[in-house]
């Protein structure tokens, strides 16, 4: 962090011990053991082993980065070496005493994973050796030239990802290429070693050549005429849309379902992004509008005894959205005069009020209380009921595209600038003639509308809704995904949803540790990349860099 401070041996040892403690911690909470069942590379490497080595590798890399150039390798190795100490302590303790009495997850299985199945003594030696080696490798990696280092990192990352998701990949490959071909690549849910090597080398090579050629490539793009560039953008967009439309065919039922769930969150995220990201209003009760949208859809379309109109999905959809918008305005009018923390707390309360009301006996005759609303039909399209996730996908996609479109258009308009100005400095924005209440209400109402839309689709997708599906955690999830993706960034919302909603669905072992991972991820994000994975400002400024070439005038000389 502080470049002037000298990085000493002691710091390297500290880093190592921290890495070891992290690994011990994730071992003791049971994550390592859970993942030991998921093989990355057949008979060679499990996800658990990656988890054990991840913290030492990262912190050794960190040590190498911070220390002076001539002893970077030594620092890395030292960090790696000391990273094994806490783990060895854990192993020895576990073999000497019965730790399971208070640490339920410290099972013989875990110990055997940690010691590579070689018993405490030999295993510990192996652990030291491997950790030191990993630390050294991480340090070497850091010492390499950026042109080589980045491709290697890309290759490693992708190979790991492919390995982690090999089970799903196996299913997909089978669907397209048949069993015999698939078995060449993935057998019993794990990547074949040769394939892993090919992947690693291949992706590294591609990334390397892309890095080499990329510069000249983007130069060539910059040299293109405006029409050429526009044509290329159009071509890209068309290709992208075709890909989006063909997605269910590529993904199959299970993945389509996952994508739908991600899409529901993307839709909510896009709405909350307007409120939090654009206008800077911290809304912690965002789930309220989601619930309102869902309940309106449920009551209007349900074929059960709570249904009042049995209208079609397409009639109920706009009604849900309008109700959510109305609720947004209704809540917004009194509370938007508050600022910052106060607003957050009031909206938090509103979210809870809606959930408790949905759960209450008072409203039970209308919305079913804890029993919820059942028998909500799936949407139908010209007579075909959209039962399959692959069909529902298009409804979700439509909603997301609509929200995306509205968000981009608004953010590039006067209203977007008003929001931005308000986020930057409320007082000055008001002094610029901006009516704060109206501007905030618009953000709140539009955000609520998207959330309502999302809720309506959600209700119809699940066919039954219950109050407990609308708890505070959803508001927090949506807020977290915006933070992880990057405040105010539309692609960031998608990235955030994929990471926070998609990943846990795919790695079902995660489910137990979902909140744990959220916490860890948010802390790491705040420390390492507070602007999010796909920050908006930078992309935006990049776009502006091109505009600058149009009206360049010499700054008028001060006379």
């Amino acid at each position, binding site marked *: 962090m502080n470049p002037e401070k000298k990085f000493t041996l002691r710091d390297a040892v500290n880093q190592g011990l921290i890495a070891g403690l992290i690994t011990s911690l994730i071992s003791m909470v049971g994550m390592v053991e859970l993942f030991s069942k998921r093989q990355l590379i057949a008979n060679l490497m499990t996800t658990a082993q990656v988890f054990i080595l991840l913290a030492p590798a990262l912190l050794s890399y960190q040590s190498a980065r911070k220390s002076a150039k001539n002893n970077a390798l030594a620092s890395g190795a030292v960090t790696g070496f000391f990273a094994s100490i806490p783990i060895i302590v854990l192993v020895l303790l576990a073999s000497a005493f019965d730790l399971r009495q208070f640490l339920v997850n410290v099972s013989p299985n875990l110990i055997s994973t940690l010691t590579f199945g070689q018993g405490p003594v030999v295993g510990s030696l192996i652990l030291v050796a491997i950790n030191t080696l990993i630390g050294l490798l991480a340090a070497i990696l850091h010492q390499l030239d950026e042109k080589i280092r980045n491709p290697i990192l890309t290759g490693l990352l992708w190979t790991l990802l492919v390995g982690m998701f090999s089970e799903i990949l196996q299913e997909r490959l089978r669907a397209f290429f048949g069993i015999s071909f698939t078995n060449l690549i993935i057998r019993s849910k794990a990547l074949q070693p040769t394939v892993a090597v090919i992947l690693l080398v291949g992706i590294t090579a591609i990334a390397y050549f892309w890095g080499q050629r990329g510069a000249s490539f983007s130069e060539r793009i910059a040299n293109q005429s405006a029409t050429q560039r526009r044509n290329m953008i159009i071509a890209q967009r068309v290709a992208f849309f075709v890909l989006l439309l063909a997605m269910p065919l590529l993904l199959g039922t299970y993945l389509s379902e996952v994508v739908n769930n991600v899409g529901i969150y993307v839709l909510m995220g896009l709405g909350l992004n307007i409120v939090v990201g654009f206008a800077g209003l911290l809304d912690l009760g965002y789930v309220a509008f989601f619930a309102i949208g869902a309940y309106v859809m449920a009551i209007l379309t349900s074929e059960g005894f709570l249904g009042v109109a049995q209208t079609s999905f397409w009639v109920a959809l706009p009604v849900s959205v309008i109700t959510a918008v109305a609720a947004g305005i209704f809540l917004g009018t009194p509370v938007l005069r508050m600022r910052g923390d106060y607003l957050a707390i009031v909206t938090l309360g509103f979210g809870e009020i809606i959930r408790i009301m949905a759960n209450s006996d008072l409203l039970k005759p209308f919305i079913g209380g804890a029993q919820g609303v059942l028998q909500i039909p799936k949407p139908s399209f010209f007579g075909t009921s959209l039962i399959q996730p692959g069909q529902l996908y298009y409804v979700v996609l439509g909603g997301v595209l609509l929200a995306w*479109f*509205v968000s981009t*258009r*608004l953010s*590039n*308009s*006067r*209203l*977007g*600038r*008003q929001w*931005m*100005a308000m986020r*930057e*400095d409320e*007082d*000055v*924005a*008001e*002094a*610029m*003639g*901006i*009516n*704060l209440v109206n501007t905030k209400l*618009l953000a709140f109402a539009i955000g609520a509308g998207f959330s309502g839309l999302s809720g309506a689709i959600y209700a119809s997708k699940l066919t039954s809704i219950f109050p407990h599906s609308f708890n505070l955690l959803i508001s927090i999830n949506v807020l977290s995904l915006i933070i992880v993706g990057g405040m105010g960034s539309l692609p960031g919302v998608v990235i955030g949803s994929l990471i926070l909603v998609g990943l846990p669905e795919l790695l079902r072992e995660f489910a137990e540790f979902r909140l744990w991972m959220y916490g860890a991820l948010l802390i790491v994000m705040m420390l390492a990349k507070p602007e999010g994975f796909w920050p908006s*400002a930078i992309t935006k*400024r990049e776009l*502006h*860099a091109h*505009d*600058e070439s149009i*009206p*360049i*005038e*010499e*700054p*008028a000389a*001060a*006379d």
Partner: protein
Amino acid sequence: MNILTAKNVTKRFGGLVAVSGLNIDLAQGSIVSIIGPNGAGKTTFFNCVTGFYKVDEGEIIFDGNLLNHKSTDLITRMGISRTYQNIRLFANMTAIENILVGEHPHLKTFWAEAIFRTPRFLKEEKDAEAEARRLLRYVGLAGLGDSLARNLPYGAQRRLEIARALASRPKLLLLDEPTAGMNPNESAEMMRFIKNLRDDLGITILLIEHDMRVVMGISEHIHVLDFGQKIAEGTPKEIQRNPRVIEAYLGRGAASGLEAEGVSATV
């Protein structure tokens, strides 16, 4: 004709009377300064005029309309615009975006038109951008439109803030220490710039300033505040000779002595 009239304006914060019974008249098209020691209530008066503070007593009349209970955004729309003592630009927005926000009161399209990109919306945006670039050029920042406000040098930020204030096409411009933190050359340039503003655009300018060279150089009329009360007003010449002013700035006793030595002219 007076564009702004403050009658007996009083603003209290708890027991502290920040502005007390202040009367100020601004003639249309004039350049007027308010001076006074720190804490004299100058900025508080600005905040009262722009509606950021509500006046406790008295009335402020602008262009024939009573401002007392109007909200800040409405007052801006009526034609008063200001800059701040400590620059308050929208730091993470570009220079052009800053000015575009300033133009807000004059943009008429409904927000939903932005979604459908109606011809009216597109034209308005294009005109607004052209106007913003024109203003940027006017304040001498041409070519810096796409840099973030926070990356601009200090002097440029001051100018940008003025450009943003001008974007709302004000009839009255309030400048809160426009030359604070500038060296003598920059101050002199700013002085010329402010004069041009009035001469080119016919805007009435009220400024708070500590740099006496600037105050004496451009003001047609000066009001001196001390402890929330007006202790003197008049032309620069009159103010320079006023013993109460010298007393407020340098303390009792200094007035007579210094004046006798002829130092007061450089206060």
